[in-house]
């Protein structure tokens, strides 16, 4: 079955395209790109007034399977991703058991093939059981299909072990992703340390907890001449460290989440646990520094850190609630409204940071670009439509999202994976 997408504004940062073009898709690939294409027998999608972008890639999501299927499954997480405009997601290894071996990676990939409507790229842990003691069999895991390694949720506390991981990863053409946090400094902290933590009487997580590890890891990456990707950058100091490291040509990349760009620690005044997240929501000054970093290109990627938790788990004392925001279905609208429609960044920059660059960082060939021969993974956006966030309409199994009721301008209109329409859901049956 051929698919013809007509009259859309095609925006592809990898080639610099930004023009009204037709796209013809056949057998899961883009086969033709021209101003006017006529294709007999093709299903036609009219993309007038819509933007056609290379499929969005979320480098940082938690699918919870295996082991925590009450929060999310590979199937529901993928549906949520499709609704959120993502065609590919990288899933973090902090499942139960931890994805630290070939068997588990193969399980995730085979389940994804059976049940996921988007591409799933597993991330394995750096250390066995995420215990920070021994390296996983990294070459075997790369061979099994993981795209990166991370002990997400915590840093590799032992600096020597982290250095070994960086060194060892080099010939494997893989990526080390670090959740930067010194757990001793974080202590019992549950929110950003500062005026508001003292005001609300909640234990604080200082900015230094993140910054010390960002600094350490850029130093180690330099020494090992390896690449490092910093997950969910959240402080002004961490931005400065990454900026300086990039100036020194250290191979560091960084991601930022929508919630860290939009919300501050002051939002916690009602002790709403849907706002409890790690790294915590930071100060206004940090948020401004992150927005500046996005504008400058110090931050490379938007990622969601989609972290589903059940309502019962979140409906507790603030101190006892698990950290995480269920963000994959709101990320695109939030970024379009708060950054693109307000002209803080261009549409092209936005697409670059959510598709082109993540595909390059993860080494996903044939993704993140619109060209003949590329995978037909596409995200079609409606920049004009206003939506109201409704967590009860989520495809995710969980509801822990603090943007309930927010009115946002701009939304994914269609998600196409390998030439198949996976969102809106009703259309997928027709293909």
């Amino acid at each position, binding site marked *: 079955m051929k698919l013809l997408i007509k009259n859309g504004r095609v925006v592809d940062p990898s080639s610099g395209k930004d023009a009204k073009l037709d796209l013809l898709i056949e057998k899961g690939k883009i086969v033709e790109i021209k101003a006017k294409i006529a294709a007999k027998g093709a299903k036609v999608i009219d993309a007038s007034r819509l933007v056609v972008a290379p499929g969005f890639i979320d480098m940082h999501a938690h699918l919870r399977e295996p082991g925590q299927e009450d929060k999310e499954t590979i199937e529901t997480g993928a549906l949520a991703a499709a609704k959120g405009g993502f065609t590919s997601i990288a899933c973090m290894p902090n499942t139960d058991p931890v994805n630290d071996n070939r068997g588990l990676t193969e399980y995730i990939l085979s389940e994804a093939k059976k049940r996921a409507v988007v591409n799933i790229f597993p991330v394995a842990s750096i250390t066995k059981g995420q215990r920070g003691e021994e390296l996983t069999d990294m070459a075997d895991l790369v061979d099994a299909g993981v795209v990166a390694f991370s002990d997400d949720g915590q840093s590799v506390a032992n600096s020597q072990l982290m250095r070994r991981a960086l060194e060892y990863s080099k010939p494997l053409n893989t990526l080390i992703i670090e959740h930067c946090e010194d757990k001793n400094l974080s202590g019992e902290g549950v929110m950003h340390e500062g005026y508001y933590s*003292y*005001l609300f*009487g909640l234990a604080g997580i200082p900015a230094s907890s993140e910054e010390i590890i960002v600094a350490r890891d850029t130093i180690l990456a330099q020494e090992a001449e390896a690449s490092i990707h910093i997950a969910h950058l959240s402080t002004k100091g961490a931005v400065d460290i990454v900026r300086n490291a990039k100036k020194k040509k250290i191979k560091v990349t960084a991601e930022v989440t929508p919630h860290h760009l939009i919300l501050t620690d002051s939002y916690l005044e*009602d002790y709403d646990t849907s706002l409890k997240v790690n790294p915590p929501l930071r100060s206004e000054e940090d948020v401004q520094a992150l927005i500046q970093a996005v504008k400058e290109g110090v931050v490379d990627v938007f990622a969601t850190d989609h972290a589903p938790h059940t309502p019962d788990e979140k409906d507790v004392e*603030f101190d006892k609630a698990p950290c995480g925001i269920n963000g994959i279905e709101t990320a695109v609208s939030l970024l379009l409204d708060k950054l693109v429609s307000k002209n803080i960044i261009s549409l092209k920059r936005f697409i670059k940071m959510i598709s082109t660059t993540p595909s390059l960082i993860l080494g996903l060939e044939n993704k993140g670009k619109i060209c003949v021969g590329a995978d037909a993974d596409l995200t079609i956006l409606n920049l004009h439509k206003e939506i109201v966030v409704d967590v009860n309409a989520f495809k995710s199994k969980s509801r822990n999202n603090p943007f309930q009721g927010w009115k946002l301008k701009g939304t994914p209109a269609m998600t196409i994976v390998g030439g198949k329409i996976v969102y809106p859901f009703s259309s997928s049956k027709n293909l």
Partner: protein
Amino acid sequence: MAFKHKHLLGIQTLTPSEIMTVLDTAESFYEISTREVKKVPTLRGKTIINLFFEPSTRTRSSFELAAKRLSADIVNFSQQASSAVKGESLKDTILNLEAMNPDAIIIRHSCSGVPHFTTTFCKSHIINAGDGSHEHPTQALLDAFTIRQEKKNFKDLKVTIVGDILHSRVARSNIFLLRKLGARVVLVGPPPLLPLEFKNFGVDIDFNIDRALEGADVIMMLRIQLERQQKNYFPSIREYRNLYSLTEKRFQRAKKKAIIMHPGPINRGVEISADMADSAKSVILKQVENGIAVRMAVLYLLLGGKEREALD
């Protein structure tokens, strides 16, 4: 009299005139506790639950007596006796108590924000009896009542608060209240327990107790918890005592008519020397006595009166 709140969650949300309303109301209840028959029918027929998830003798008994002297029915519920130890969630525990149709629930919990959380699913009036490191509003109100008995006016009083400011809900509620009423507040403590950010609450910070006591009208000593030493907030109790405890000699630096306060329980010989705790300058037991009148006022303002019924 204006006190238009359904709950008492903290001092932060009260206006100066609302604070004065509580103190004036407490004044009118004060005398009841000195009568031979210590009971008035004001809250007859009202049911109050005293829900304490942390050990407490003073605050719990004080609320209990306050409720009883107003003829309300009060039930005590402590964590040891509760289903919390059986794994029931906080919300379920409170919903079960709420199902018994109380008019008010008084809550003490070690986690900040629990009273706020409770208001999101409860119909009852919620009174914060101390939440984590956040607020302890009735303590600050009874402290203010005690200060007013002794000093008449708050404006330009110098109040020095000494100890573990970081973890103290008493310090926070007192800072908010005293600043609203125009007093000058100086905080003293070991730097790890006294973040500089507290300056943004409109107070002065000093790490030298002798300097901070200079010319003080009111000295508030806070209990120092021994577990803080295990977490290296300060090196040893000996060193803490040397640097921060209130002694006769240090007291000389304060004004002649200065008063010594402590929310209790005190560690004699740690944050305060025994002779200071027992001296004529100490109003520590007066605070406890005043606590009942102030809590009667709070219960009355939240639960009683025709104005109240209109608001409900």
